[in-house]
């Protein structure tokens, strides 16, 4: 049996992995360093991203294969869609790194930095590998490579946190792990059934197969992927883990992991899609349930992270939605939607992180509550506007046209297919979703709660007000009164580091540019 290695094509996966190895080696050689590991991580992610570019440039329909069998089937195939997903994962990981820089680069007795760096690199490499998987083995390995380090990331909370808080993050990690274990069990069973049904571990269907077994196999594998996408009913870990994990890690779970999961789903649906409508029904059901349940529960949340967690559940439904149709565009539509979703979610998380940091980073609770965002527009317009754009992108409303286009893209295959019930459910969920995000947005635009501590204004927003004597009410409903005239003990003025600003600015720019000219969608 000959195997045509074409390692060049696998560079997007290999580079981060190599970087991980380098990180570990460096740590072994020069223990106790922190920043170099993070820089190495950045370099690894960047290198991976650069390696994706040739894949992006190839014409539609072409694919770069590696580990190809004599029959021409490859165990690793990267066409344009795959490359897009890889790039998304790598770039999102980069953003997460930027957000977490201060956290991960902070002093730690246990030498956390290199471990975290290696975990991030490993998980990201896994996420990049999943969409390119050409057979079940690759898929299984890649999936677990994407999942297990992420569990580690959740568990490795900031050592500066109070013990109780760290204990909770461990609990979150356990929740994630348990679900992932069960899911993996299911996927493994599914893989076995797949082999039983088709007689091959390759993800391209032979002509002879056992339909019932294949169906069972696909359902089992779908369930496993559903867990990673946090689609209902495999979503239960999501709110727990999201709220307990450190915010950057949450961001990682919400973006990079999603890219990986979608990649796997795309691989599966590509293999199944043209023939098996029943599996599509399962996808449709998952999509509809995820949207509805996610939005409904998100509607009553009072914490931004929990809200985002449930919104992730809902958005998973949207990502799955196009896959429920037979259309050839479906997988591309799902990919496009995912990219936009990742963009919006990253931006939202970036702002949430920034706000939480200014509120004193005690690791959750008050800093991420919706109340912390009340009146943000008046207090910190430079954060509020990007947040607004992010929320509107997720909601799919102009002026964030890109979100709207994403919704259109996701709906199109379904509507074109004539699956009206699903389309109508989706349409209702657009409204529900808007209710979710607008509820948040209203807080951002609205008045600050009376008595809330007045944070120091940043940017050019005339900041002289904080210490000034109580201003006259003068009819401004948005008046923020200094609480009791007491300085509230915020000795260290909250400071949003430059890297967060850069991240916010770049992402905002991306949203705006894409809103004006949504190139590359589908």
């Amino acid at each position: 049996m000959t195997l045509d290695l074409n390692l060049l094509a696998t560079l997007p996966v290999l580079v981060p992995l190599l970087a991980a190895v380098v990180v570990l080696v460096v740590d072994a050689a020069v223990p106790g360093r922190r920043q170099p590991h993070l820089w190495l991580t950045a370099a690894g992610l960047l290198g991976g991203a650069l390696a994706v570019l040739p894949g992006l440039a190839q014409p539609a329909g072409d694919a770069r294969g590696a580990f190809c069998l004599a029959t021409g089937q490859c165990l690793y195939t990267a066409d344009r869609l795959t490359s897009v997903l890889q790039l998304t994962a790598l770039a999102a990981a980069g953003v997460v790194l930027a957000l977490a820089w201060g956290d991960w680069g902070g002093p730690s007795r246990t030498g956390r930095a290199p471990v975290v760096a290696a975990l991030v690199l490993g998980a990201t490499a896994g996420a990049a590998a999943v969409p390119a998987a050409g057979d079940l083995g690759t898929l299984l390995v890649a999936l677990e490579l994407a999942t297990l380090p992420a569990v580690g990331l959740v568990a490795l909370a900031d050592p500066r946190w109070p013990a109780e808080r760290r204990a909770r993050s461990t609990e979150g990690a356990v929740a994630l792990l348990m679900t992932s274990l069960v899911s993996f069990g299911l996927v493994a069973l599914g893989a076995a059934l797949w082999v039983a049904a088709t007689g091959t571990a390759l993800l391209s269907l032979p002509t002879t197969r056992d339909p019932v077994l294949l169906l069972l196999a696909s359902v089992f594998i779908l369930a496993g992927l559903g867990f990673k996408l946090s689609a209902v009913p495999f979503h239960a870990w999501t709110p727990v883990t999201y709220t307990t994990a450190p915010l950057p890690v949450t961001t990682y779970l919400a973006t990079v992991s999603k890219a990986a999961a979608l990649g796997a789903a795309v691989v599966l649906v590509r293999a199944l899609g043209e023939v098996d409508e029943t599996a599509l029904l399962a996808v449709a059901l998952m999509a509809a349930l995820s949207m509805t349940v996610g939005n409904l529960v998100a509607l009553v949340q009072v914490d931004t992270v929990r809200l985002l967690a449930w919104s992730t559940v809902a958005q998973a439904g949207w990502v799955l939605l196009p896959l429920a149709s037979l259309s050839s565009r479906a997988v591309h539509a799902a990919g496009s939607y995912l990219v936009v979703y990742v963009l919006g979610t990253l931006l939202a998380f970036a702002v949430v992180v920034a706000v939480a940091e200014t509120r004193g980073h005690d690791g959750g609770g008050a800093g991420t509550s919706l109340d912390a965002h009340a009146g943000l527009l008046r207090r910190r317009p430079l954060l509020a506007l990007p947040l607004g754009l992010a929320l509107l992108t997720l909601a799919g409303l102009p002026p964030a046209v890109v979100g709207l286009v994403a919704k259109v893209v996701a709906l199109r295959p379904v509507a074109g297919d004539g699956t009206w019930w699903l389309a109508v459910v989706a349409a209702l969920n657009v409204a529900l979703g808007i209710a979710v995000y607008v509820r948040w947005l209203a807080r951002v635009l609205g008045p600050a709660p009376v008595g809330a501590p007045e944070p120091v204004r940043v940017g050019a927003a005339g900041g002289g007000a904080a210490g000034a004597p109580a201003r006259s009410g003068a009819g401004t409903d948005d008046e923020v009164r200094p609480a009791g005239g007491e300085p509230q003990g915020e000795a260290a003025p909250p400071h949003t580091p430059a890297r967060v600003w850069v991240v916010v600015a770049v992402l905002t720019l991306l949203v705006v540019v894409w809103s004006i000219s949504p190139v590359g969608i589908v």
Partner: protein
Amino acid sequence: MIRPALPYLLVAVLAGLGVYGILARRHAVLVLIGVELLLGAAGLLLVTVGQTTTATDPAAATSGQVLTLFVITIAAAEVVLALALILALFRARGHVDLHADLDPREEAAR
């Protein structure tokens, strides 16, 4: 070709036991063992399938066996991580009871 009924039966029993362990046990390690049973079922199934399909499709004949190796390896990695986490949980909480609330919702929703 004979249908290897016994292995399949064993697969079913293993999977059932795994599910039972996952659902009925509250000790984290026992749940972990349930998962391992499930994975074992998957591996057995793979092996069995690989044996029975040898005759029909020589090209893919080895798939089952190879996948089994994959599954076992991954399972091992998982167990390592899981045990580490369970240890951490035990240190933090003093128990490894999975029936305890994981969700700090009350505090957040307060």
